[in-house]
């Protein structure tokens, strides 16, 4: 309730468009886990995906796939073990369980 005035801020917030704190009381709504704002952000993330994905696809050179495949081979036995450990630190852009 009472979050309609924040609707236009969600996408811009997710894109990092605000130089400091988010405008209005969005920051405090997020701190308080406001369900409306969290839902708004989830929906806004779909718009952001669409926007970012408006770039034209580019085919990578075959060498990139070869390098990646070699990397998987060398990391193969350790990667699964590492991934099974809890995510440390604040880098929440790493794959993590959905809340």
């Amino acid at each position, binding site marked *: 309730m009472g979050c309609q005035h924040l609707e*236009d*801020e969600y996408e811009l917030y997710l894109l990092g468009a605000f130089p400091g704190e988010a405008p209005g009381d969005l920051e405090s709504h997020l701190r308080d886990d406001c369900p409306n704002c969290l839902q708004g*952000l*989830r929906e806004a993330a779909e718009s952001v995906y669409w*926007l970012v994905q408006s*770039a034209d*696809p580019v085919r*990578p050179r075959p060498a990139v796939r070869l390098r*990646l495949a070699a990397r998987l081979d060398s990391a193969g036995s350790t990667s699964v073990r590492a991934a099974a450990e809890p995510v440390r630190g604040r880098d929440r*852009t790493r794959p993590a369980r959905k809340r």
Partner: protein
Amino acid sequence: MPRRANPPSAALQGTEATPESLLSRASSGDREAFLEIYDRLAPRILGVIERILGGAGPSEQVLEEVFAELWNGARSFSGSGTSVAAWLTFRARIVALDRRSSGANPVSGTSRRRRESASASVTTGLPDAEAIRRIEQRRPLLAKVLGQLPREQLRALELVVFEGRSETEVADHLREPLAKVKAELRAAVRFLRHRRRAVVGSWAVNI
């Protein structure tokens, strides 16, 4: 030499294994399943990275890093319900913008912190696989919607999306009053939100 690729739409829309089910197999060490995700999604992810960074060399490095990060986190990601394409897209944007900030095109010293804060929020609520599939099915219509934005709004939005500029930095770059840029950005996202709801929602609309 540009290497424009056709969007692998069938890969995301067909009845074949989804990126999420492939990642589930990859989390058990299935390397071929992981490389299939790469084959399907790499062109789209590289498109985003190249739009931000320009040259092929640095962009392909970022592409490799982001996919390697996904491989390393496959076990914790698998079963989360989150879209693999969405995670790759958001992560690639953040890494490419950071690379851009630390390279020849610095935007501002606060950009990285700002993006980290925003990206943390994004990843607490990344779109699920079904939401992304709905968007992918309507990709041509959505592209048309972007083309309907007034040029000034689209330009301001692109500076935010692909150059990682804050609204203040957009105003400086365009030499426009901040209030005008703020209004343009909000009008743009409002328009896009309404159009997206219409296009991927359950009701038909002429656009």
